[in-house]
């Protein structure tokens, strides 16, 4: 039956997001907060995350272009990025943010640039996967 097949596919997609480490337990916590009265809660949170994070990405890019590098500002942006990634359970994105913060800590601009490329990559991958999962465009 088509409906059952769809459900199976959705479950499969969801499980692989967890198995491949894109999402962690926090995403499940958000799912638990969803109910009939608030059926789109998770999607709403994820939407907020992507609009926020895209703004942060632009801010970090600008900050990285400035000389001398303002590590305080970068750390601040990353702290926000890390916070929201953590709040939705974006595991891989969070891990790359940690790497970036480490480069900030040792004031390594080139390291920060490379780490940020990885943050952006993970962010883009997660966005693609969640867009498929929710069948929306963020």
């Amino acid at each position, binding site marked *: 039956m088509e409906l059952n097949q769809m459900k199976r596919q959705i479950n499969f997609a969801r499980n692989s997001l967890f198995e491949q480490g894109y999402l962690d337990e*926090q995403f499940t*916590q*958000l799912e*638990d*907060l969803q*109910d009939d009265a*608030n059926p789109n*809660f998770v999607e*709403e*949170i994820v939407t*907020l*995350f992507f609009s*926020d994070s895209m703004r942060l990405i632009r801010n970090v890019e600008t900050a990285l272009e400035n000389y001398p590098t303002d590590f305080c500002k970068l750390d601040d942006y990353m*702290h*926000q990025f*890390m*916070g*929201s990634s*953590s*709040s*939705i*359970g974006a595991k891989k994105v969070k891990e790359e943010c940690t790497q970036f913060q480490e480069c900030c800590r040792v004031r390594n601009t080139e390291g920060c640039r490379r780490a940020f490329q990885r943050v952006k990559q993970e962010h883009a991958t997660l966005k693609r996967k969640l867009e498929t999962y929710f069948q929306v465009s963020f």
Partner: protein
Amino acid sequence: METISVCCDQIASSKSTQLHVLAVDDSNIDRKVIERLLKVSSFKVTVVDSGSRALEYLGLEEAKDSTQFDDLKVNLIMTDYSMPGMTGFELLKKIKNSSTLKEIPVVIMSSENIVTRIDRCLEEGAEEYLLKPVKLSDVRRLKDSILKTENRSRKRKRNDDRLPVLPSSLSCHKNLTMSPPASPQPPTPKLC
């Protein structure tokens, strides 16, 4: 000894038993999540995005007669630690230094597990220091703790005002008598 007959209607229209939380966080995602966590746990929730807005909100309460505006009474403040402008720690200090607000329990939320920071917050009078992301189990535990404190202080107040101690289950038109004041309660243990 006085006898007071209490009608069910009067009880129903009196102080709401729903606890009211003021949540403070500069992150819009975290505000949305904490709001949902609290509503799911049957709290009434007000969310603000900064320490100064929190004080504004609490300040508005001070001006009002608390017996008339029980709906606005805040039973718990949950604040993020790292916020621009006023940090959660600074907000905590301001609340604990205020004669009108210091009784309100304050919980700090932070993504950072820094022992010195945790100690500082607890020493300053925070009820608890929760690590983000905050879970449903954290909120439920908090609720139990706050309810116990509320019940204790409600009993103390009733005895101070020499009103009868109301049994938890009420039937209409019951004749009630005053009971003697309770002995002093021990302080609430600090959690976390």
